[in-house]
């Protein structure tokens, strides 16, 4: 039973990572931009949810409004700043998005302070499923798992079965050719970037009641996303899904087996994958 709980936690964590890393890997695959600020958007989502939930008193209102605001921020950033990075060297993309992290982190400090906040779990889900006499599992975590799965399925459907998804795939495999065939690349890029930001913010929003809303939460999660993207292979959504689950599993197992060294488990996994398949699990060399 104990291991079932850990397994459920691992899957929930892995799926949450997938929401984040799929945005990161799509933005890289399609626009060739490495976005360090991706973790900061996770933070933005969590803090917006915290602020809006406090203001409106309703989490179900706070999450969609927060995600919408994040989408708008994404559009604004893409059209004013990120757009200019497409043809630049990765080095400058890293530097500029690093600057964005500093800005977002300080804005967070100015508007919300440096304390750790909590978001209450909504009434409907605020109970635990008893598994044995002593162990139980919080329903909200199951809800998060279900939501993540739902979003992943919707994303799969959009990318593989709709016209917009076709354009995204075309842009991913060959930007110039897609443009030549009449795809409105600037618009597509702006939308994909904003969607990536909104996904990250959404992940932050639904994770807020589980984890605490704290400074530095974005940076921690960004590194995990990098590990996921490196393991899965850049630009691959399927690879990101597989790698997210693996990282979720490794992290949870590490916490159970060697708590003090749990932070190292995922990096060992990454080192092993690098030795075995430097191009990632899903990409062919």
């Amino acid at each position, binding site marked *: 039973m104990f291991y079932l709980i850990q397994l459920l936690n691992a899957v929930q964590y892995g799926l949450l990572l997938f929401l984040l890393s799929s945005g990161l890997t799509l933005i*890289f695959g399609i626009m060739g931009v*490495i976005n360090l600020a991706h973790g900061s958007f996770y933070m933005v989502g969590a803090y917006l949810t915290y602020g809006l939930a406090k203001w409106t008193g309703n989490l179900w209102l706070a999450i969609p409004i927060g995600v919408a605001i994040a989408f708008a921020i994404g559009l604004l950033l893409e059209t004013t*700043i990120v757009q*200019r990075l497409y043809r*630049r060297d*990765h*080095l*400058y993309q*890293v*530097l*500029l998005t*690093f*600057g*964005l*992290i*500093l*800005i977002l*982190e*300080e*804005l967070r*400090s*100015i508007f919300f302070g440096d304390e750790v906040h909590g978001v209450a779990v909504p009434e409907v889900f605020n109970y635990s499923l008893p598994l044995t006499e002593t162990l139980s599992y919080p329903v909200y975590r199951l809800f998060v798992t279900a939501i993540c799965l739902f979003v992943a399925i919707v994303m799969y459907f959009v990318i593989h079965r709709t016209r917009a998804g076709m354009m995204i795939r075309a842009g991913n495999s060959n930007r110039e050719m897609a443009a030549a065939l009449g795809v409105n690349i600037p618009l597509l890029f702006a939308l994909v970037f904003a969607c990536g930001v909104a996904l990250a913010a959404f992940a932050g929003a639904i994770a807020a009641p589980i984890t605490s809303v704290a400074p530095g939460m974005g*940076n921690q999660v960004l*590194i995990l996303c*990098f*590990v996921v*993207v*490196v393991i899965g292979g*850049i630009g691959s959504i399927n690879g990101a899904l597989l790698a997210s689950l693996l990282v979720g599993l490794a992290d949870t197992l590490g916490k159970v087996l060697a708590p*003090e*060294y*749990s*932070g*190292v488990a995922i*990096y060992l996994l*990454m*080192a092993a994958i*690098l*030795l075995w398949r*430097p191009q990632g699990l899903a990409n062919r060399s």
Partner: protein
Amino acid sequence: MTHITLPHWFLLAAVLLLALVPLGATTFYLQLGAKIMIMAIFALSLDLLIGHTGLVSFGHAAYFGVAAYTLALITPKYEAASFWLTLPAAIAAAGLAALAIGFLVVRTAGVYFIMVTLAFAQMLYAIFHDTKLGGGSDGIYINVRPELTLAGFTPLDLESPAQFFYLALILLIAVYWLLNKILHAPFGRALAGIRVNEQRMRSIGFPVFAYKLGAFTLAGAVAGLAGYLAACQFGFVNPEILAWHQSGMVLMMVILGGMGRLHGAVIGAAAYVLLQEFFSSSALFGAYAKHWQLSMGALIVIIVLALPHGVGGIIDVAWRRRGYRQARNNGIGENGNG
């Protein structure tokens, strides 16, 4: 005849000027100056990777931090450790960490390399942060600075800000000289070749992997020297010194000064440290001084968008224009650049 160009005279003048600083400066400026020179050594080591080998490492603070922790861990609690023992140990530890991590990361290229170097640096951060090994998130105090003795007497007392300033200056010059020598040696030329066209270097028969790993290790060791000096100066280490903010900061220094030029790294380090002092000055910014990263972040964004070659790039462009004008006036073509 040795070929001494005008920039070299500038360099010499700058060094002489710096050597005179301790005669008239207060402790605050001595410490600021030493900090700039330490950061310059750090930036030089990263420039070897980014500007000269084409490897964009985003985890360079790891080696800086490993060396700093090495000093903190081998210094006894109430007495001074030997400079001659701790310095090589710290540099060796940083170099070994770079060798081990480099062995894994140098296989990757481009954006993978950026992410993987960052991830491994965070791994070291997690080790120092989560385990008891390095005092956890509180870090370790170095109560007594290392003792630099030579045949029974102490030429430089590291507890004195002025003498520490000289030590930093001497080591900065030594690193600059060493890297300059290496870059002009066959090893450095091979690195330049790898930066420009790795495939070609491989097909000519250069062991590209070994060269890159060598550069990565050397850069890690030199970063270790900077980390050692920083730990000496502040008398304190904590996990934040190998966090990625530090890696981003040193990257910013290299870009600010213009990469691929050794003097650029030094200029960039000075510019960054002074800017940080400026933005975090509460006399100028009042209550917002503690949010100095906001101004720094905005400046980074502006610099990336507006100055693709860094601040050093402006100087270079001005320099080259001057060169062209001179050449045109003299009626001869532009001769080889130094």
